[in-house]
């Protein structure tokens, strides 16, 4: 009888310990979640600063990718054998600076696709952090804004990180050289994101035109305010 008593006590103790441990685990998990969230909020304090270090510089070879466009088709740079290069723009659905740039991006594609430099737009944001940037809303955006170019979803968030894009919009102008895509210009579309009619310097268009004329690009890097990429 006594043995049974001891045994049952032991069993309870065991259950209690297990319960306690699982509880601790849960708390630990919670803590981890908080830590991860903090990183997210921090807009990626360390990841971001790392990215800005590993991101592309002028002259680097840019990676190709295989990302889903708003029609469900997978798109890669290698799908464009006739292109001379690419205007890769990291952009998103609702960032005011991205929205303010939409018409200009459509105009750039119209002007330069036929000359060999099509626009490829990529949404780098994590829709779990930025709920306006889901794939479904991308489809809606592409339709409403009349996108004439592929609007791709960087679902694994690996491509923007390789490029080093920190914000939307963030432009990378690539030129094909011996089968590689070389980064020729990084930065803004022009010198006035807010107001297209007040633009004085069309940085990106100038750079593409210089490439088309076989010249050196005079302004290789520019800065603009943008919405940080939501990891």
């Amino acid at each position, binding site marked *: 009888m006594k043995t049974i*008593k001891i045994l*049952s*006590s032991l069993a*309870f*103790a065991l*259950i*209690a310990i297990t*319960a*306690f441990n699982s*509880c*601790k685990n*849960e*708390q630990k998990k*919670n803590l981890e979640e908080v830590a991860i969230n*903090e990183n997210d*909020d*921090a*807009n*990626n*304090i360390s990841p*971001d*600063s790392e990215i*800005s270090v590993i991101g592309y510089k002028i002259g680097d070879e840019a990676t190709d990718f295989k990302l889903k466009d708003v029609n469900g088709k997978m798109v890669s740079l290698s799908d464009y054998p006739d292109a001379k290069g690419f205007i890769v723009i990291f952009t998103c659905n609702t*960032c*005011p600076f991205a929205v303010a740039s939409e018409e200009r991006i459509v105009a750039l594609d119209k002007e330069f696709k036929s000359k060999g430099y099509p626009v490829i737009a990529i949404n780098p944001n994590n829709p779990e*952090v*930025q709920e306006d940037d889901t794939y479904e809303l991308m489809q809606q955006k592409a339709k409403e804004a009349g996108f004439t170019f592929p609007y791709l979803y960087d679902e694994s968030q690996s491509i923007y990180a390789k490029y080093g894009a*920190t*914000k939307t919009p*963030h432009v990378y102008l690539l030129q094909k050289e011996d089968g590689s895509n070389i980064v020729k210009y990084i*930065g*803004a579309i022009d*010198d*006035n*994101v*807010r*107001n297209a009619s*007040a633009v004085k*310097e069309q*940085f990106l268009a100038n750079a593409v035109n210089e490439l088309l004329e076989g010249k050196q690009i005079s302004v290789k890097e*520019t*800065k*603009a*305010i*943008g*919405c*940080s*990429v*939501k990891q």
Partner: protein
Amino acid sequence: MKLLPVFIFFIILQSCSDKKGKTKISGITSEVALTENLQVKKQDFNAKKIISINFEEFEKNYFQKENDSVYIINFWATWCKPCVEELPAFEKIASDYAGEKVKVLLVSLDFPDKIKGQVIPFIKKNKIQSEVVLLDDADANGWIPKVSPEWSGAIPATVIYKKDKRKFYEQSFTFEKLETELKTFL
């Protein structure tokens, strides 16, 4: 006697759920506490008077102060989610360090046509106490490198400076992180 282990078991479970409950609540209480703090501190920042300045004016009036105050300058916008999320940290710093020579300036990069419709209502609703100015200067490529050559242009971004010592941060802050950085200037 037989019931004792069962009892202990439940107590442990209970304590566990208690702790979880507390963690959840603490987030809310800190927000409440913050709001209270702000209400107590009645510095009269009048939200109706948000001034718009260009970069030259900003640089002259806010970015090159030679006195012995520490200036915390945060670049934000009402549409920038991580910016809005970190504002309470800046407000709490301003309130906690009100007795010391610490000044918080919130530099809004909202579009100028949104002052009335968006920025002022936001400031009122959230009872923002720190000074807010609107940086209205389209030539971002010209002035971003003057804030810091390290800045990609993504917001939020923050500069902390005291006289000649300055540091730039392209990141979000929690209160603790901001306080840690501030202390390196005090």
